[in-house]
């Protein structure tokens, strides 16, 4: 129960933050990626700001033995750089550039812009399901 409340709070703040920052506007995201055209770098400050806050959180995390509502931290490794990582990132960038949406803003837009966001999210889920089906 405590875990669910924390997840709801985190998710809601995340969704509000995406709405505030302009990440839910595909044309603005496209502008951020349009470096050879009408480049709009402002979204870099959104990512930069969030990254700074998180950097502080990582400093706190190092002093904690366990998180507030679980028995231990479950964090991924940081060093493995393989073809899965780079190929996955290349593909994700292509999808991001085509649609102007990444997973967070796509899902966050479901209630606000149900039809286009729904088309994006259903396609994304299909892509995830295809990956699961072909994963070795």
């Amino acid at each position, binding site marked *: 129960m405590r875990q669910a409340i924390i997840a709801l709070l985190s998710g809601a703040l995340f969704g509000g933050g995406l709405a505030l920052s302009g990440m839910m506007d595909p044309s603005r995201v496209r502008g951020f990626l349009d470096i050879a055209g009408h480049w709009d770098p402002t979204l870099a400050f959104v990512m930069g700001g969030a990254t700074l806050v998180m*950097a502080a959180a990582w400093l706190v995390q190092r002093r904690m033995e366990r998180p507030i509502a679980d028995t231990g931290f479950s964090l991924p490794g940081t060093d493995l750089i393989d073809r899965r990582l780079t190929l996955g*990132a290349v593909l994700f960038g292509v999808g991001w550039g085509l*649609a102007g*949406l990444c997973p967070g803003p796509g899902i966050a837009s479901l209630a606000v*812009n149900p039809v*286009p966001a729904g088309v994006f999210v259903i396609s994304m889920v299909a892509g995830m399901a295809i990956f699961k089906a072909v994963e070795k």
Partner: protein
Amino acid sequence: MIGIAAAIMLLGLGRIAGVSGLAARSIGLSDAGPPRIVAMVFIAGLILGALAFQGVTGPIESTYPPSMGWLIAGGLITGFGTRLGSGCTSGHGVCGMSRLSRRSIVAVVTFIGSGMVTVAIVNLAGGGW
């Protein structure tokens, strides 16, 4: 706000607030991550948070691609790519880069680069919007 949200996830639940991973977990397409209900609640929160923001400030400005084809193709490739590469803008971008994860830094540079190349190619082909 995004940073605070990710910090709550890390310090509260000990996990990365990576949307692609939590989305896959919430619909049963991934076995990694928190209990499924926790992922489902996070995803619900994401939707409700944006809706609440709109309720307070009025409509969120957004211009979508001119044709559904962009959203379908972009969605499919995004879904596949984020699972293969184990993360998207939130997990690798906000959470990974801030802990100086080499893996995430490589991922972020790669997907921003490939996104820029993609937009440039679409523009050159006359499909810009």
